[in-house]
């Protein structure tokens, strides 16, 4: 198992030029050196990633999004307030926000938005932006995404057991016994595989992803 992890880390370093493995720290992320991107740059970025769709300038601050969000209790800012912060130019606050990272992609905000803003897609955009800009929050959500990403970049398929194991090693579950019981249950019912599935075209996929990272929407 150990060699497998080393392998993974090694390979990731090779591919993810834009995202080196950060030093793990507990608590809120410290901002990276340098100023955050300007408000204009972020608005331009949004426009680039969702062309032809209503942008946050249309937001009437009604709160349909924050009212609909199932993860609302966890958010430091509701999506509505995040948009207001962007419009106020408070980019530091925006990129440090945990809101996009808690987005569960339920798309309630998006279908309920009276101005038809594609909020969920903008949340993805904000995550990408924060990640690329080095605002890598050392929270569970970022880690989960990155663990997940590591496996699919490596094997082309997700690997639940590996992801869970790695994630829980870093962030022990609240109720270890219950989680262990559940894992065992899943395993006994044949719902967890011991080995990752691997696609045939891993090399091809990696080539595609490396090229794609070079083509990433610039900011």
């Amino acid at each position, binding site marked *: 198992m150990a060699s497998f992890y080393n392998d993974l880390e090694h390979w990731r370093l090779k591919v993810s030029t834009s995202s080196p493995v950060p030093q793990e720290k507990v608590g809120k992320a410290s901002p990276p050196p340098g100023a955050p991107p300007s408000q204009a740059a972020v608005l331009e970025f949004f426009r680039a990633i969702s062309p032809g769709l209503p942008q946050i300038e249309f937001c*009437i*601050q*009604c*709160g*349909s*999004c*924050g*009212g*609909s*969000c199932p993860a*609302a*209790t966890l958010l430091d*800012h*509701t999506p*509505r*307030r995040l948009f207001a912060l962007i419009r106020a130019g408070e980019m530091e606050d925006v990129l440090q926000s945990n809101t996009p990272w808690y987005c569960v992609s339920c798309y*309630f905000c998006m279908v*309920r938005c*009276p*101005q*038809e803003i594609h909020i969920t897609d903008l949340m993805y955009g904000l995550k990408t932006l924060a990640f690329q800009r080095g605002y890598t929050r050392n929270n569970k959500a970022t880690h989960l995404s990155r663990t997940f990403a590591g496996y699919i970049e490596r094997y082309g398929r997700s690997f639940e057991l590996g992801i869970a194991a790695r994630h829980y090693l870093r962030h022990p579950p609240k109720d270890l016994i219950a989680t262990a019981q559940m894992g065992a249950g899943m395993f006994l019912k044949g719902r967890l595989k011991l080995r990752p599935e691997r696609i045939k075209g891993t090399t091809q996929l990696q080539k595609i992803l490396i090229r794609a990272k070079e083509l990433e929407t610039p900011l």
Partner: protein
Amino acid sequence: MSGANGKNGDHRVGVYVCHCGSNIAGVVNVYEVAKWAQEELADQGVVVAKEYKFMCSSLGQKLIEEDIQKEKLDRVVVAACSPHLHEKTFRGAASRAGLNPYLCEMASVREQVSWVTEDKALATEKAKAIVSAAVARVRQHEPLEPIRVPINSSTLVVGGGIAGIQAALEIANSGFHVYIVEREPSIGGHMAQFDKTFPTLDCAACILTPRMSEAGMHPNIELLTWSEVENVEGYLGNYTVTVRKKARYVDVSLCTGCGICQQKCPKKVIDDQYEVGLGYRKAIYTPFEQAVPKFPVLDRENCTYFEKGTCRACEKFCAPGAIKLDDQDEVVQLNVGNVILATGYDMFDARRIPRYGYGKLANVFTSIEFERMCNAAGPTNGAIVLRDGKTAPKSVGIIHCVGSRDHKYNTYCSAICCMQSLKFAHLVKERTGADVFNFYIDMRTAAKDYDEFYQKVLEEGTNLIRGKVAEVTDGGLFDERGGQLIIQVEDTLIGKQRRIPVDMVILAIALEPRHDASAVAHQFGISCSANGWFTEKHPKLDPVSTMTDGIFIAGCASGPKDIPASVSQGSAAAARVVSYIQQKELSLEPVRASIIAEQCSGCRICNDLCPFNAISFDEQKMVSEVHQALCQGCGTCVAACPAGAISGTGFTNEQVLAQIEGLLRVPVRLESAHPVAV
């Protein structure tokens, strides 16, 4: 006039170039233009070309008038501002000098040249081109007379809500006859359903019913209730409207309105019109006590007699024998001069937003249902209770903007809901003492005394939460608060999601255009905006007229309005109608199409093109004909006629082609790209 067909030399054209102070002369070399016209356009019949400081001044006009008489001019070109500004002025001058006003043409060298061009040389050349085009065009002009139409002094008001009643009363009080056509059994409209009216909280019935009965008894007003407009023909001053009077099954000449038939009728049905589904009525009914007219209507679909052939309870008990079970629809034709459309609005269907639970969660009500509930004559006699009919709510949530300001439903603001919701908050507080939560996006209380009312509601301790409600769920499903409704919302002022338990939810639903608004618009030859409301001639300066002469609009038919605005519009439309009637005869611009019968092949292509139904086909002569008063002069048929048989007065092919030719006469200077330094 000369009657010649455009050969050189037989027209005498005068060209007048205006300086407009320095507005034109500062950029265009007016002297050069005048000189050029005199010299180069002599072959076009230009005999005089003059420039003057202010052509529109009385001296300037006098100059033209004198020239017309002295030089025997038969065509005049004024190169000045846009014809939209001073065409009337110069036509007036021509007319005073004895020239047919339509033989005067304007060349817009201010708006189209001096104000939009920097380069003086280029501007002068362009001005020459425009003058040359105007000269070429005016040579093709024919003397015209405005079309005179008589105005029938009767008026049709469609819709008997407060706007329609107001309009009808104003016209009737001026001494002219009015018909009110109303779809429902009684006039009164939505206002008759309301309880209190904001911001003064006077009872709707107390202020409305006197107007209703005044309209009902007015010698100049004829009510056609339970009737619908079927067809409209004609034009300003002379409309013929076909109205279907639906069978009432009650002989109104015998009925005394005693109401015994309603008492005795054994069939009780849910009243989804007047009581919006919250109450019951009989199969023979008047919608409410103070209905005008007082005669009941028999609802054929629910009547036991029409279902099973027996019963006839109403007939048995009617002392004057007014029940007429063999009644038939009656079609009548009304001749009117003007029409006022006061057709009102529909309420948004709250079931379209499933997340608010209307129709599934018992204690979610719409605003109009709540109006009925509050009304002392309503289904609960004015008691504010839950769906069980007896429990008073301890907390009530009022949700604003339901179906308004949302791109999925209606993008506009329904204008009345904020005040209506505040009124509800007050009524709930006053009658039940319950906690009230109002959920709003923006508070819009912009009219006289409205914000004062808002202050009052604040003072009463209403909880105002700024946020659009995300969803209403049944708390009994997963919360300890059994049976209550949970309103989930972001309180945007604190930036947190809140879950607020309430006993009752009221949805302030949007006002929508009538479901048949576009059909009605088509019938009357007017248009609807993208949102579906009737379009006014000008949203600010002419809000009660439409693009079709003689058709006016009032009240919510052109967009959501409160009662004061609807009443004002009713009066305004009436004033417009009365001013038309008092002129007895109106003149219309002679910009009209006409068909030369000899050239018409009878292909009927033009018939369907006309949006005003002004072209009809004469089956006998096998040619199409244009009705001059209906034609609005757009010219689409002229352009479409494959035989070239249609001629558009004021914009004939010859005139436009001559104008193009004139424009092309002066080439574009090459300096265009490089402005000449001054």
